[in-house]
């Protein structure tokens, strides 16, 4: 069985290798799925795979992040979290918390939920962070060449992936509405922007498709856009190439639809003149 799993891992890595860069550093990682929703009783599994070329030790932890008005996720220090955020950290249980994996070795992380009796209805969320611990990546710093004179510098990133783990307690509903849309010019190139507002007791999540009436091919597709309950509205800002930015100006139809995995129903649809 072990061998079979290993072969599976190898073939997965081969498939990945075709798409990604050939050189993998220690600490590179794969996480699947990319979003977890728990309804209060059943648990699930998340797969972590070491796709680096060296063995690496990964630490798995929960952290609280809050969405900003511009759609970012701010990390919140534990001393500044609200009681509801504290409840989210307490009700999500997972194992293991630390694992050392040889290259191409997947590890299943079991995620469960324990909702205490009397927990108020609502959406509770934490973000699960997977990252290689510094010991595993410290070897990279040693590659820095010693300087005979002057100052040599080795900066080592400790990098990881976070995915949201959402627990829904009670019967919750939510709606979203698309606001203004515009194209902006930034220092790093143009971006397509629009406002997205939300009402109700839970987050909204889905895909954005921007089309031009009479043109079959969508101008822009962006998947996995969320508005979390801590914000009533956010701006969605998506970097686009110059030619796409030019095409987006004028009359467009913006459709925000639910995830394809749960049917892809329309959340909101709007026609806008993009400036």
């Amino acid at each position, binding site marked *: 069985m072990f061998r079979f799993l290993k072969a599976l891992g190898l073939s997965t890595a081969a498939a990945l290798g075709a798409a990604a860069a050939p050189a993998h*550093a220690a600490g590179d990682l794969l996480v699947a799925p990319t979003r977890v929703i728990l309804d209060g009783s059943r648990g699930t599994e998340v797969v972590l795979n070491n796709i680096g070329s060296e063995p690496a030790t990964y630490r798995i932890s929960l952290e609280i992040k809050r969405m900003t008005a511009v759609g970012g996720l701010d990390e919140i220090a534990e001393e500044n979290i609200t009681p509801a955020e504290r409840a989210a950290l307490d009700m999500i249980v997972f194992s293991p918390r630390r694992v050392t994996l040889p290259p191409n070795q997947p590890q299943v992380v079991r995620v469960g939920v324990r909702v205490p009796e009397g927990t108020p209805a609502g959406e509770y969320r934490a973000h699960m962070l997977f990252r290689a611990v*510094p010991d595993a990546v410290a070897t990279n710093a040693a590659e820095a060449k010693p300087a005979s004179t002057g100052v040599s510098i080795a900066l080592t990133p400790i990098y990881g992936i976070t995915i949201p783990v959402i627990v829904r307690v009670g019967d919750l509903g939510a709606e979203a509405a698309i606001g203004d849309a515009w194209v902006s010019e930034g220092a*790093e190139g143009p971006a397509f922007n629009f406002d997205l507002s939300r009402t109700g007791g839970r987050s909204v999540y889905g895909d954005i498709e921007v089309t031009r009436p009479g043109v079959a091919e969508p101008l822009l597709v962006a*998947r996995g856009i969320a508005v979390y309950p801590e914000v009533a509205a956010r701006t969605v800002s998506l970097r686009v190439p110059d030619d796409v930015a030019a095409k987006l100006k004028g009359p467009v139809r913006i459709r925000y639809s639910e995830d394809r995995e749960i049917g892809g129903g329309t959340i909101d649809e709007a026609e806008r003149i993009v400036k």
Partner: protein
Amino acid sequence: MRKFGMKRALLGAAIAALAMNAPAAHAATATGTATAKILRQITLTKTSDLQYATIISGATASTVAVSTAGGVTCGAGLTCTGTTAAGSFDVAGTSGAVVLVGGDSSVTLNGSLGGSMTSTLTYSAPNITLGATGGSFQIGGTLSVGANQASGDYSGTFNVTANYQ
């Protein structure tokens, strides 16, 4: 070596075939069914470290900036040698998926012979939309070098995350 690999692959295939045959054996009259769930995935791979290369400090404090494109701006009074590079990461996942990029905005570097420096960090984008072959983001920074900064090997670590929303 190749033969060994082949053997392993065959073994894997054989086990897979066995596993698929198992339900059919139990229900002789029905056709066998195989199920597989494909999970959406995200991968994060480092393709380049942020490199300030080697700096010879001067009599006055100055800065060295490496842009997210990798270009270097060596401040007045400093000598910069070697090849600089922006930090770079590849992200792969579902085509069209929007991934948020986050990380520390500064890092402290400690010298092997004492002394310290700080570097600000800048990210090429707050979010990236993955294409069919994924996407990437870069990290640049500005290093503050003190007057007559002690020589030595300076090192520091900083946090970077790719976040699904």
